[in-house]
């Protein structure tokens, strides 16, 4: 189970690291190399994004990666094949991240059956709130998969509790307003917000949006269970190639 894996792992580490890739960006070969390097460098879990043409919640870096992956021929089927390969080859838990339409077109049931079959542990679907997610939740629960829900600083206490009633595995707390990949001020406000999050759920907390360097990860120690690095990995790979992924991870741990 994802939740117990995280809790177990936390006994050995102050904070866990979750990273994100867009499958097929810049190519599937590079995607595989990035995963390989990251796992070797000690990443604890990974988000595999199935690219979508309208990634509303993503900022410029991940948006461009989505577009480029699609231009380069990434399809849902190729992403599923890729996911099958990495879950077979590497021992850490993997999650899917995508937008509602990808799952909807594939069929919620079929999609979650595929996930279960290839040992993907859960999914993050930012434009599928529980109110719209009855079919999704049913399919995920039937397969004992984790629907990962998102908390935001704008979310009321009442709604935090509501969301946590559907959440499994862990909760993804976005550190600030806005889209992925922009600067975040790691400040007292963030601490207070994370205290609110912790009150609302007994699940582990992951914090993402704007986590870029060692100082950010260190700041989150004691306040959260998982630091999420998203856009920054893509920036590093853009600049230095897939081979730089491992060194980058070692530099922030």
């Amino acid at each position: 189970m994802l939740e117990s894996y995280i809790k177990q792992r936390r006994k050995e580490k102050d904070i866990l690291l979750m990273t994100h890739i867009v499958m097929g960006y810049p190519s599937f070969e590079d995607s595989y190399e990035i995963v390989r390097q990251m796992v070797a460098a000690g990443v604890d879990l990974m988000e595999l994004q199935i690219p979508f043409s309208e990634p509303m919640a993503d900022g410029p870096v991940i948006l461009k990666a989505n577009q480029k992956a699609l231009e380069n021929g990434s399809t849902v089927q190729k992403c599923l094949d890729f996911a099958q390969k990495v879950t077979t080859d590497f021992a850490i838990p993997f999650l899917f991240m995508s937008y509602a339409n990808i799952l909807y077109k594939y069929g919620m049931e079929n999609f979650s059956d595929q996930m279960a079959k290839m040992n993907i542990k859960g999914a993050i679907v930012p434009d599928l709130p529980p109110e719209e997610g009855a079919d999704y939740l049913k399919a995920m629960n039937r397969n004992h998969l984790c629907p990962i829900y998102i908390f935001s600083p704008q979310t009321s206490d009442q709604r935090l509790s509501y969301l946590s009633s559907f959440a499994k595995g862990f909760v993804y707390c976005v550190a600030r307003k806005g889209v992925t990949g922009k600067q975040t001020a790691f400040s007292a406000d963030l601490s207070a917000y994370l205290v609110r999050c912790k009150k609302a759920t007994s699940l582990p907390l992951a914090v993402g949006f704007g986590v870029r360097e060692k100082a950010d990860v260190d700041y989150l120690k004691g306040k959260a269970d998982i630091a999420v690095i998203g856009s920054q990995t893509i920036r590093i790979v853009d600049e230095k190639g897939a081979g730089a992924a491992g060194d980058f991870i070692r530099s922030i741990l």
Partner: protein
Amino acid sequence: MKNRGYYGDYGGAFLPEILVATFDELETAFEKIKNDPDFWKEYETLMSTYSCRATPLTFAQNLTREFGGAKIYIKREDLNHTGAHKANNVMGQGLLVKRMGKKRVIAETGAGQHGVATATMAAKFGFDCTIYMGEVDVLRQRPNVFWMEQLGATVVPVTDGTRILKDAINEAFRDWVTHMDTTHYVLGTACGPHPFPEMVSYFQSIIGKEARQQILAAEGKLPKRVYACVGGGSNAMGLFSGFFNDPVELVGVEAGGKGLDSGMHASRLKSKDASCGIAQGYKTYFLQDSDGQMKETSSISAGLDYVGVSPILSAMHDKGTARFESATDEEVIAALKLTMKKEGIIPALESAHAFAQAFKEAPTLSRQDVIIINQSGRGDKDIFTVADAVDDPKWKEFIIKKAKEYHA
């Protein structure tokens, strides 16, 4: 999340968590004005003193004679301030923004009409204003970009994706998730997450309310059919809503582009190329591939060049309470030329789709029948596109000369 606004299987509010509170606030504010009898009065007063409401219903005598069938009336939304029905929605949302106490507005625009209307409203009400516009549309609707900037708005060309309307909407959402405390997103059409489809249709319903009264006054009876072009669907919703309880056939006309068989069009409801999907926060018919990736659309008119369509119209399509057709770029130019020559009226390329379909059907109706075409906007914004389409040598000569002046 309070209410999700479904129309049959379509609509909903597929929101990122960060926007849920903002949408709850918007819905509360909208419910309040809907239940406030003074609000509609305030709105009508604003529209009659700042814009030209009620807009006329013009009897098109020469076109009627030309086709020898139904009597053709034209609802003149082009005579609104800023030249299109877009003002109806924008001024309504402007009043709402004032009540919510926000100081900045953002909007997407395709043809530029919604952007110009929003920039105008922002100038009048003293809001900061940013308009997102696809790079392709910036090029084909340059005059509107010029006016938006003169009106004090910042126009941001969107270089991602297909660089047209849908991409501008994505970018506006990205701005909004960052600045929702101070900013309202003035969505320009009856699409997007609840309550936008309902709210935009509510403000646009002024078109249908007026048209119904006007046709009864002029003809003493209801029209047989009413025609409106359909991009997102706001002008169609506006006109149609006046006749929901009447035995009137509602005809929506989509952009047929180079023809429905060519794949180069923006027809979601008439063509077989669209399927139900979820994007931009709502569920509707989208032009998408089997993976759910949105396809490129094509139309001579920037305002109809959109992958999705109002969920309310999708529901009407399935129920058969409205009929959807399409007109090709070529048919649209022909209809535009005829309308200019016969009536001295210049419809926008978007609106000319409704004219084209009405012209196909008018001769098949009897002389006792009456039809209404919604002229959603005026065509002078399209001067560059139309000049190219009619291949006018004098215009080219003028442009070349003008360019030389700038080089000098």
